[in-house]
């Protein structure tokens, strides 16, 4: 079985379960991917065997943890690519989605990260929600993570961050993160305490896994 087939199936399951549903029927997956039910059943069976899916009562299946992580990675690539194609290159939305489906299986994680932060820096047209969705902020990092600042939302609002050495391109280390989301970052050998709402405006380059 091709990796792209696995990824397509897992992505489809993720998409169907995204709105809070617990399980998916094989027929729904077949319908979403526009393949015959019998073909879908065969693939689903092998996905269960490989530990990507697990069977619940009846025919219903759901993603295992392993399956979920593969699915969400692919889904993210899909979104980033679709965003890039529509926002930056002006490709028609439906065509972009189709093309993203093909590209998403070949592109590396590194390239997606860079593409995502490249788009994060750009000014997207108002009203579209492409930007930001893919970007991780300081709040998504764990204690001990070392990350590179990609961009700051509202760069004029927090002048002091700039003066303390937190600017796009600078590497910072998360020294402390309280349960209530206040963070301390170390930059240039100094520890800086930052309120959650400000930390949320600092986008970082690669999402820590």
């Amino acid at each position, binding site marked *: 079985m091709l990796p792209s087939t696995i990824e397509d199936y897992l992505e489809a399951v993720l998409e169907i379960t995204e709105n809070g549903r617990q399980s998916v029927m094989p027929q729904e997956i077949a319908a979403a991917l526009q393949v015959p039910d019998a073909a879908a059943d065969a693939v689903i069976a092998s996905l269960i065997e490989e530990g990507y899916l697990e069977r619940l009562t009846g025919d219903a299946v759901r993603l295992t943890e392993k399956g979920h992580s593969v699915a969400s990675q692919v889904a993210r690539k899909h979104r980033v690519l679709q965003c890039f194609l529509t926002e930056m290159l002006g490709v028609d939305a439906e065509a972009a989605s189709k093309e993203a489906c093909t590209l998403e299986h070949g592109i590396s994680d590194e390239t997606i990260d860079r593409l995502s932060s490249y788009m994060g820096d750009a000014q997207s047209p108002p009203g579209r929600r492409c930007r930001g969705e893919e970007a991780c902020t300081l709040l998504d990092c764990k204690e001990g993570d070392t990350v590179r600042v990609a961009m700051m939302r509202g760069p004029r609002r927090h002048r002091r961050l700039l003066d303390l050495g937190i600017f796009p391109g600078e590497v910072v280390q998360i020294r402390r993160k309280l349960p209530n989301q206040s963070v301390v970052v170390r930059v*240039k050998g100094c520890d*800086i305490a930052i309120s959650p709402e400000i930390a949320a405006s600092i986008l970082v380059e690669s999402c820590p896994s």
Partner: protein
Amino acid sequence: MRFALIGNPSVGKSLIFNQLTGLGVEVSNYPGTTIELQRGNTCFKREIVELVDLPGIYSLDGNSEEETLVRGFLEEGDVDAVIVVTNVTRLERNLYLLLQVAEYGLPMVVVLNMIDEATEQGLEIDPGPIHDLLGVEVILTAASQGKNIDQIIPASLAALSPAKVEIPYDHHVEAAIRSLGKMFEADRTESLRALLGFGDNPELLEAARTIADEIESRHRMTAAQIIAANRHNFAHQIADLTLKEEVVLPRSDLDRILTRAFPGLPILLGILVGMLLVVFIVGSFLEELIVNFFDVFALQPFIALGLPQLVETLGTSVLIALQAGLGIAFPYILLFFIIISILEDSGYMTRAAFLADNAMHRVGMHGGAVIPFTLAFGCNVPAIMSIRLLHSRRERIIASFLVTMVPCSARTVIIAGIVASFVGIAAAFSVYGIVFLLILVTGLVLSRVTPGERFGMIMEMVPLRQPDPKLVVKKAWTRLSEFLFIAMPLLLVGSVVLGLLDFFGIMAIFEEAVEPITMALLGLPGYAATALIFGILRKEMAFETLAILAGTADLGTVLSSLQLYIFAVVTVLFVPCLATITVLLREVGSRITLAITLYTVALGLVVGALLFRLLS
């Protein structure tokens, strides 16, 4: 000759200033201690040298009050040399400001301070690169030990030629500087400042803004971000040349425990409660000693003299005022200021601010508000002054309301002297409970209704240090003497006026008039109202006045526990004292001051009346 000290917060500027001038400038280990300009004179070879201690700042391009003040000072150029003080253990960040100052092209001396700490951390410092790059004298100092401080003035006197520096900026910025220079004959610094939006030539600013917008759309970074990044990178290179890490020495990292939710929060609570307990217990013990001493060696001998009635009344009033003043100042206020000074100098306050950030958000402020709040337990006056740490007017308004409600040490005297002594220690803590609850509710309401933008906290966690006992005592002493200067005259005059009013029977008339009201509303006798009014002069006077008017210091014999409790609660909530009102006027304006005053009066009376209804 006039020299100015400039540098990041907590780098030892004020300490150096103190050592050079002998003035008692407050030294604190948290950002924003020096907000006004401190000036002092020193003599060198029979020449008078004026020193100006500028507030600690991180940058010359920000919009905060301190930054604007320093920028204005440098632009005026009314200074013969600037002395840039840096913390050598955080050199890279400190160099960022140093480079900005150097761009002004004033004669300059660089002080690399805290070499003692740097040595402890295994850093080797080479002053050569900074000297060569900027063409200025570089002095290595350890201000806490007074090492090499004596070289600063001679070096400043010798510094005649302006500092030179050319920070390599991004080529778009450089191109912008060149074209602005051609169009408006502006020099490099002026063009650069125009790109950042500073300056007084509207045409230059307009052109600079257009270019800055162009740069921003090309780079996807604002011009300010690019310029800051270039400066930081240059600072990084210089720091690399200057510092060599010999051996990486292991450093104890207390922040491992101090800034975690656990055990950090219990430690924070423990420190606050412990502080109050110490002030309560040790304070009341010391107060008793002082009061008794006065009784036996001053008051009783004076009365034994058998002087004429009027003279005796006046003399007793003065003695009672002295007794009250000293009995409060030394045990409670000095003790409190010593503890606060230790906390400030150790750098713990910034940890407290970080931990409290979320809680402070709930009441409409950010973690920095912990500093005014803690100060307020000592005295509301310095606390109100420190609300300038908060950056928006919205936060300052909320803070000024809440800070005035915090029981200061004078109110602690009332709670300790009246409630703890005559009702019980549990009841005393319940007064705190009531006050904190009201502060919380007020904060929750104010954070909803106060207009204005919310700002979060961006605060440097200053390094933890062992406080120097000498400096701690000196600072506590300075604050205490300020207190004595404001309080003692008021206390003396108030006491004498009170004695005279009593002597001529005017007090009795007033009390008779208000007695029905106070009895009905609060269940308190008329003279308690007089005491409350005198409490406005200074809070602790309410206690003393009550004792004088009741005719005995053993209040338990004349008033019931409930009456004492209600009196204490009302006094604690009722109107900030005169000194607080004065600072409030200066910091937040007359409308807010009036609102705070009315609010606290109403709160005191309503809560007092409620307690009276509920408990009697």
